[in-house]
């Protein structure tokens, strides 16, 4: 960084005066600033690097080196200062240059009285006003070399060398030298350019293939996009799809119609008229929404009919729960399956076997009962009914919210949780407890007990990979639970010994750790 910062400071000086530039890098930059406006821009760019990343700095260095390589004359006799950076002996050249500055008048005097050049200069006297200062500026750079080249030094030749040969031949030579960089730099955009249309073509092809797949109603999204992108093609092929759909499976449309008629899903009921309208005018309207709505319905016929209403019912009741609160939360807890089961129980009790055709009065009474129950108890806690027909409250939202906020803070997000998200979390925690209860029941029943022990919970957590040879349950508890609960865990000795024994059976070192910890 120190080296980097020096040339930064040095660039303005270097533009003004050469002799300060003793260091390599300052030597590199001074001619750039002197000779070319490009060099100036390069030095101007170099201002950026110290703030930039090391890669960016390296990139700047390579760019500058390329530029220097392009714009430096590359003759053997006439060594440019930019090359001086590359060859180690150019320190000596730099010194020679500094010394040559002092000998400057000698050089000029030696060059001016030169016999042969006089004629040429006298010829060029008219041009000296224009070309003269250029010579001088070049001489400033190359004065170290000037004494070496004694009498051949025709300023005209130098002009030709510098002026004409600068760009073209040296570029070619340097290209030969540094093939890789420059060639790559030239070719990179070409590749990108060539890849562009190819990718588009491939995209087109894939889209076309997708498009044919959409005849099988597989990719609804691509379908919709395509309709947006290319309406005429769509028009043609969608007509094809429609005919295909009609020919292949008339049942689909029928099922759609049936679904519309029944309209047992509120969401689909909303979307249905749109679809009906689209079937006639779908070609014209590139509506993205309509196709995905309609097609998955076609796709998943057997599965979806069972599945969709459940989801919708949940989501509906869920959203309703946000608005209305207690009434619908009773429904949230009671999954439709459960309601059906309860209904089945009721039906079995009354020895009515047709569960599918239960009279609506019963459904209503049952639902009303549930609602009444929920409404009655909802003031304090929402009451749900489990699989076993036992009422249970859900966790108080304040507790869940506090937990979630704490974990959200620790996980990096803000501690703020919207009420919608809170409801979703409550739902998830309800499901979690349901799943956990069933698992624990299975474990305890498998052990021949009718009581859920801590060993069951530990087994569960081991199966969840929360407890393994590295982490003991006690370590987890001490990490997450507050002191009071830890003390509850600790206080009764038999419980702890149980934990120890459990871990001791599995892995000996754990037990040792536990003992050492406790």
């Amino acid at each position, binding site marked *: 960084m120190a080296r980097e910062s020096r040339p930064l400071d040095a660039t303005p000086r270097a533009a003004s005066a050469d002799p300060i530039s003793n260091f390599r890098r300052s030597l590199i930059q001074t001619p750039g600033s002197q000779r070319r406006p490009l060099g100036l821009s390069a030095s101007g760019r170099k201002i950026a690097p110290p703030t930039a990343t090391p890669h960016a700095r390296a990139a700047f260095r390579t760019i500058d080196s390329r530029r220097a390589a392009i714009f430096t004359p590359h003759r053997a006799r006439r060594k440019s200062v930019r090359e001086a950076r590359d060859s180690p002996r150019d320190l000596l050249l730099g010194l020679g240059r500094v010394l040559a500055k002092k000998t400057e008048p000698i050089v000029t005097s030696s060059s001016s009285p030169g016999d042969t050049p006089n004629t040429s200069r006298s010829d060029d006297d008219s041009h000296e006003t224009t070309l003269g200062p250029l010579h001088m500026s070049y001489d400033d750079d190359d004065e170290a070399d000037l004494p070496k080249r004694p009498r051949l030094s025709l300023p005209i030749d130098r002009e030709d060398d510098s002026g004409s040969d600068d760009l073209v031949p040296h570029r070619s030579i340097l290209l030969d030298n540094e093939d890789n960089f420059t060639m790559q730099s030239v070719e990179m955009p070409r590749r990108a350019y060539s890849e562009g249309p190819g990718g588009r073509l491939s995209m087109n092809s894939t889209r076309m293939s997708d498009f044919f797949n959409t005849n099988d109603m597989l990719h609804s999204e691509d379908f919709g996009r395509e309709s947006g992108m290319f309406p005429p093609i769509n028009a043609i092929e969608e007509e094809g799809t429609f005919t295909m759909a009609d020919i292949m499976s008339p049942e689909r449309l029928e099922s759609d119609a049936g679904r519309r008629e029944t309209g047992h899903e509120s969401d689909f009921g909303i979307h249905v008229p749109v679809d009906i309208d689209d079937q006639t005018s779908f070609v014209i309207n590139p509506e993205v929404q309509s196709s995905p709505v309609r097609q998955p319905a076609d796709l998943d016929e057997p599965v979806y009919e069972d599945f969709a209403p459940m989801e919708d019912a949940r989501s509906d009741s869920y959203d309703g729960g946000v608005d209305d609160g207690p009434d619908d939360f009773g429904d949230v807890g009671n999954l439709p399956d459960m309601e059906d089961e309860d209904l089945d129980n009721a039906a079995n009790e009354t020895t009515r076997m047709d569960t599918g055709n239960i009279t609506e009065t019963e459904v209503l009474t049952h639902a009303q009962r549930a609602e009444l129950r929920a409404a009655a108890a909802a003031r304090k806690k929402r009451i749900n009914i*489990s*699989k*076993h027909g*036992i009422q*249970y*409250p859900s*966790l*108080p939202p304040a*507790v*869940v919210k506090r937990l*979630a906020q704490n*974990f*959200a803070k*620790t*996980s*990096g*997000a*803000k501690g*703020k*949780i*919207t009420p*919608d*998200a809170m*409801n*979703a*979390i409550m*739902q*998830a*925690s309800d*499901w*979690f*407890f349901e*799943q*956990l*209860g*069933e698992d*624990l*029941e299975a*474990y305890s*029943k498998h052990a021949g*007990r*009718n*009581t*859920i*022990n801590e060993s069951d919970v*530990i*087994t569960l*957590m081991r199966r*969840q990979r929360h407890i393994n040879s590295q982490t003991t*349950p006690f370590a*987890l*508890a001490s990490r*997450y*639970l*507050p002191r*009071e*609960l830890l003390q509850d*865990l600790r206080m*009764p000795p038999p*419980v702890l010994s149980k934990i120890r024994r459990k871990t001791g059976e599995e892995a000996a070192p754990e037990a040792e750790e536990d003992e050492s910890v406790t």
Partner: protein
Amino acid sequence: MGQKLYPRATVKKIVKAHSNCSISKNADVMIFLDYMLFMQNLVKEASIEAKKGGERGITARSVKKVTADSLAKFKG
């Protein structure tokens, strides 16, 4: 924490209702520990999902999207 971490009786009731089993004296502490782990996982995944979706905080969408995965992760 000034207030108690969670209502033990409620947790016991919930698990009891779901499992139709009685629960030993201090098992609910471990159950709640597991619940805390679940909540941590859920919230972490939800916040990741929210960041991925460009949302500001944890929203219902991110939570719903993640719920199935974390429930499956906590399947015994």
